């Protein structure tokens, strides 16, 4: 692990200044180089995101809350405590809450209801920063990793899942704010870039949206943290000149259902590593 991290530090600068290749073809020489580096650092021995996976496993097995129990009885959709493949089918409808929930909403629900945990501190640390780890980022890295190698299969069957998909699609195209932006402004054409940053087309089923959604959560080298889809959408709303979306709000889950449905069948390889 240590050796791997040293290699990563050396490569970080290269990756930080890079462009994503996903939205562009053909690849330039520097992009090919970056692809090579990316493959190297996707190696569990050198991707720091796997530290989060380890921490997440410890948190999963940690007794906490008023009830002093672990999260191991939390049902993520595949049955209590069943982790393999659970992330591949999230967000999904849960009978006990009669709600469609993404992984973070569900974990939060289990913390409150199973563990009797006051989640104020967990929510405060929703995004990790310098000297501050995030339980949610750690748990998501651990649980999502249990679906690595599987195909993304977010269900859109239950009426509430269908509602989420339709609302998510509408929110993707919803324009507003001082700059008149919607997600579609930046993510509905092939091969476009903002400055030098390639923009994946997420508004139609295909390879670009699959490569995107199959690679979150991801270790963001530029932020030295594992990031979840909740964080990515928060950051895109920031660029959109919209207000900060509420953490764990249903609109973010709706967008995730829409994007995951477009990405159906994507190879999941997580935590990945990105710029």
């Amino acid at each position, binding site marked *: 692990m240590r050796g791997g991290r040293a290699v990563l530090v050396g490569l970080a600068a290269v990756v930080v200044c890079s462009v994503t290749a996903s939205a562009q073809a053909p690849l330039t020489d520097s992009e090919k180089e970056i692809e090579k580096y990316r493959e190297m650092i996707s190696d569990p021995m050198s991707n720091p995101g796997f530290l989060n996976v380890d921490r997440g496993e410890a948190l999963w097995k940690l007794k906490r809350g008023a009830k002093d129990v672990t999260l191991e009885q939390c049902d993520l959709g595949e049955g209590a405590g069943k982790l393999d493949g659970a992330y591949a089918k999230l967000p999904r409808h849960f009978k006990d809450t009669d709600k469609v929930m993404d992984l973070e909403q569900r974990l939060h629900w289990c913390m409150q209801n199973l563990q009797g945990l006051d989640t104020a501190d967990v929510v405060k640390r929703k995004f990790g920063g310098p000297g501050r780890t995030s339980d949610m980022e750690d748990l998501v890295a651990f649980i999502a990793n249990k679906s690595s190698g599987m195909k993304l299969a977010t269900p859109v069957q239950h009426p509430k899942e269908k*509602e989420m998909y*339709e*609302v998510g*699609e*509408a*929110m993707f*195209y*919803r*324009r*507003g*704010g*001082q*700059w*008149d*932006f*919607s997600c*579609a*402004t*930046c993510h509905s*054409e092939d*091969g*476009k*870039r*903002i*400055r*030098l*940053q390639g*923009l994946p087309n997420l508004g139609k089923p295909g390879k670009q949206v699959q490569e995107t959604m199959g690679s979150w959560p991801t270790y963001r080298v530029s932020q030295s943290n594992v990031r979840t889809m909740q964080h990515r959408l928060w950051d895109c*709303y*920031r*660029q959109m*000149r*919209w*207000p*900060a*979306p*509420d953490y764990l*709000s*249903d*609109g*973010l889950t*709706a967008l995730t259902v829409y994007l995951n449905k477009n990405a159906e069948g994507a190879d999941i390889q997580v935590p990945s590593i990105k710029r």
Partner: protein
Amino acid sequence: MNYLVLAAGATALVMVATSSFAQQKPQVDAALVDRYVAATFKGASDEWKKRIEQDASQKLCSQYRNELPAGEVQSSLAREKAALKFPADGKVIGDWKKGQQFAQRGTGGQFSDGPSTPKGGNCYACHQLSSAELSYGTMGPSLTEYGKIRKFSAAGAKDAYAKIYNAQALFPCSNMPRFGHNGFLNEQEIMDVVAYLFDPESPVNK
């Protein structure tokens, strides 16, 4: 669907927006989407909430996924055009050096920005402008030699002012922000950006 939009002004800007298939009107109930959006931004301040209340064009462009049906095009252009405001003295060209800063800068108006964060139009995010600047986006057309190509004409500069003030007065549902219309850039700031496009000394025209 195919439509032609003729922009008013001496140089008629002709733009053609094509889409291979007409977008189907979405089925989802608009009030339901509004409820989700309200819940998603529940924690925002009232001032921020106001910023994402949609005006007529934002509503229509959202509803039609940015591809207005033929029947909505003229009325939409007319509405946006009626709201255009030019400087009272007719002068539209300011200081290109200040304009360059607005074109380069990408900050301002984000929830991560402070009240004193300098604002910019972020033109380079979407456009090539000076051929010396290699870090430019491709969401909009290249604007290199913009003034030169238009022979530095007064009418061309006025059209550019209109474009930056309200891109949708010339192109319905344009992806380009309505910088003046939405109150993000003021009159002087837009004039400076126009100068960046139209001053013969600006690197855009070199």
